């Protein structure tokens, strides 16, 4: 051991998420929680519907988090959070940040009407969707966030998913809410900054966090961060913000847009794809990327 310089920490050292939780090795959803809580601090109440995180946290009477959690029904994350917020206001607490914390199934599919209602009323909550691109908690079933081409237990190799991932940002933008952001656990500082920013805004704020799942994606646990970076670098999951449904800002600009093939190759869920299928998926990614660039540049 040489120089006794300071350890460089790019995020606050205090942890509100503890060890001992029940997530699989290399779980991305866990890191999403760790970073978001670092940004929000202790004055937070979470509403978590059925999803991996309701298991990760631990069984009664334990929890892995040092903030209160209300475990709510699968389809009610957004509206439970609105209710908790209203209740806190009634007892004079205007400080606590209320967060709905749901998976992609709980957001893109079953929870979408509650979320739409909350967004339309512009209720004062932060809605976080950690996206592992399938129903993982119940054994890897397809959701509308599952990308085109992926294997899941309900889209077996012979009938892999043949529909594109739902464009949740566009749906949320159509509600004209004050803040929408995409983030990835591969870029913790960006996620941290966006969460801090969301905390200071009033109204419905929507954070969509890309969170690799080695168990469901048949990827190596040590590749979790790499995948979360690659997906941004190849423009499959660009990092951007939308204010009031119209002002688009791109956060990670790409000097060189990487091909998607390398990203697909290290995930078992895409192993069956042929060169031709990969080429057509690449075309789709390129088209979506151009569409996003035109939205960013239109203002």
């Amino acid at each position, binding site marked *: 051991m040489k120089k006794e310089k300071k350890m460089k920490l790019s995020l606050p050292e205090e942890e509100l998420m503890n060890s001992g939780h029940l997530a699989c090795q290399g779980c991305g959803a866990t890191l999403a929680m760790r970073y978001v809580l670092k940004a929000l601090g202790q004055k937070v109440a979470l509403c978590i519907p059925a999803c991996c995180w309701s298991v990760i946290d631990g069984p009664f009477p334990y*929890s892995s988090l040092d903030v209160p959690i209300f475990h709510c029904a699968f389809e009610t994350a957004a509206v439970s959070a609105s209710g908790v917020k209203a209740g806190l206001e009634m007892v004079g607490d205007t400080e606590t940040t209320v967060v709905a914390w749901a998976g992609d199934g709980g957001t893109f599919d079953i929870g979408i009407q509650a979320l739409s209602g909350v967004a339309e009323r512009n209720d004062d909550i932060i809605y976080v969707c950690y996206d592992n691109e399938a129903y993982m908690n119940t054994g890897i079933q397809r959701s509308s966030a599952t990308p085109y081409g992926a294997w899941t237990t309900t889209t077996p190799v012979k009938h892999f998913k043949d529909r594109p991932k739902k464009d949740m940002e566009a749906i949320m933008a159509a509600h004209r809410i004050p803040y929408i952001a995409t983030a990835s656990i591969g870029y913790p500082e960006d996620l941290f900054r966006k969460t801090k920013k969301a905390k200071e805004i009033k109204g419905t704020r929507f954070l969509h966090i890309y969170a690799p799942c080695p168990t469901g994606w048949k990827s190596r646990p040590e590749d979790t961060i790499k995948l979360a970076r690659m997906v941004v670098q190849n423009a499959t999951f660009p990092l951007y913000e939308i204010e009031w449904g119209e002002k688009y800002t791109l956060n990670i600009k790409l000097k060189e847009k990487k091909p998607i093939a390398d990203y697909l190759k290290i995930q078992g869920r895409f192993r069956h794809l042929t060169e031709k299928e990969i080429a057509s998926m690449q075309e789709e990614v390129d088209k979506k990327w151009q569409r996003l660039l035109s939205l960013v540049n239109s203002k």
Partner: protein
Amino acid sequence: MKKNKQAQKIVFKSEKDVPLMPMSIGTMLHNKTGVWRNIKPVIDLDNCIQCGICWKFCPDVSIFVEDEWPVVDYVYCKGCGICAEECPTKCIAMVEEEK
């Protein structure tokens, strides 16, 4: 930091001890997830540049900072290998666990 949080198992002696509302009253720290591991990270501090990247990316909060150096908490580390993969100087080796 977590070292001073309490980590006991909670035992309800009778039904009367169980809270009326199912509330979490203890932490999962009693769940020593290190036993899940079959390979373990070993840090070679001679080549460590104290960048904090291993600390930042550990999903199990199992790398802590002690006297400005990274230390693996083997009580909880699940052996996912992320720290070794992400370390810029490749000074973390994943070695077979002896049981």
